[in-house]
């Protein structure tokens, strides 16, 4: 570890740096510039200082959207991760059913977001939707356009339907890489099913599971299209997640200054969480052997 790392290879990525500068850094600088000014269009700007940041930080609308976003992401992870593991564990390990399972599991992942939204929007409709009409026929008053809980359930079930396969497929990839000898040893020790899962399968799934959690968290944290198509953020503001609120502010109200401040805070939260996830992911496998060496 004492040898300094030679970073000269970084010059090879210069073309990407230039591309990213045009696609990300310059727009980001513009957002920073907008966040401290007021504009009515026509490239005329008026100095506003930190007013927009103060306004956003103290606005109840921002706090509610933030809370909603975290609750949504937490529920998504709490359902999709255990469910994905369960599905992966029950998938066959050999034979022709493997391909069948993989294809069926991959299907929801191939559908574009707005199509998923449209499918569920129609599926849940009270008048013509299979789910909505059937539930109401059964005497369960379900209406995602009027009841906030129904809207939340619809959006969550939709996301679970769309993305659990991703977690399952990643976990499955981790599971099939476990050599048969491990299970054999467990059988000799007459280990219970739970112990096989806890001490053989879960440690082997560790890395892919972290990737799955990272991907699902980031995706659910920036979710826009699906809830926008299904509920449009309603009823009221009950499914107005972060990005929906941001678009409402920037394009609906044309409040470019506050929206710029909003998106910078959004960006900082994502940057922080990505860094935490990345650090955990890159260090989780590294730390264990070192600790073993010390002990």
């Amino acid at each position, binding site marked *: 570890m004492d040898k300094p790392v030679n970073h000269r290879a970084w010059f090879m990525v210069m073309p990407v740096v230039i591309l990213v500068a045009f696609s990300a850094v310059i727009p980001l600088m513009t957002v920073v510039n907008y966040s401290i000014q007021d504009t009515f269009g026509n490239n005329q700007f008026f*100095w506003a200082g930190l007013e927009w940041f*103060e306004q956003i*930080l103290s606005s109840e609308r921002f706090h509610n959207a933030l809370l909603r976003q975290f609750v949504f992401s937490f529920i998504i992870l709490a359902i999709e991760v255990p469910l994905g593991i369960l599905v992966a564990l029950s998938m066959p390990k050999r034979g022709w059913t493997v391909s069948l399972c993989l294809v069926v599991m991959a299907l929801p992942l191939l559908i574009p977001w707005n199509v998923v939204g449209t499918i569920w929007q129609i599926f849940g409709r009270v008048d013509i939707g299979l789910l909505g009409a059937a539930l109401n026929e059964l005497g369960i008053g379900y209406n995602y356009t009027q009841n906030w809980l129904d809207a939340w359930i619809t959006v969550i079930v939709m996301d679970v339907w769309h993305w659990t396969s991703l977690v399952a497929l990643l976990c499955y990839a981790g599971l099939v890489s476990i050599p048969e000898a491990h299970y054999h040893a467990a059988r000799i020790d007459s280990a219970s099913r739970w112990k096989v899962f806890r001490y053989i399968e879960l440690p082997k799934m560790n890395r892919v599971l972290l990737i799955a959690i990272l991907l699902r968290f980031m995706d659910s944290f920036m979710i826009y299209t699906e809830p926008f198509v299904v509920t449009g953020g309603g009823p009221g503001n009950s499914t107005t997640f972060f990005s929906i609120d941001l678009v409402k502010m920037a394009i609906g109200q044309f409040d470019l200054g506050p929206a710029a401040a909003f998106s910078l805070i959004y960006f900082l939260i994502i940057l922080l969480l990505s860094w935490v996830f990345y650090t955990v992911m890159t260090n989780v496998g590294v730390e264990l052997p070192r600790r073993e060496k010390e002990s």
Partner: protein
Amino acid sequence: MNDGSLNLDWMAWTWPTAVFFLTIFVILAIMTLWAALAPQPPRVGILRFATTPGDRLFVSLLGAAFICLAWLAAFGPPLWGGLAVSLVYAAAVFRWV
């Protein structure tokens, strides 16, 4: 308006934001030079994982952004107090992380 020269009006530059980005670019340039002249191996600090000076700069800048936001939410402008706390935080990050 469009006489063939590059028109950057849409970027809405102001002096404070220009100084802000220039400072970050100058810090990046200095850190790059520093890494080229006196390369440092990653070291393990109080967070118990290896960090390079670049990692510590990133943690300092990101932390400074949140410190300034917290300062703004708690005390309002001006942000000099927040900036001072951020500098102390950055020094601590470079010393111990």
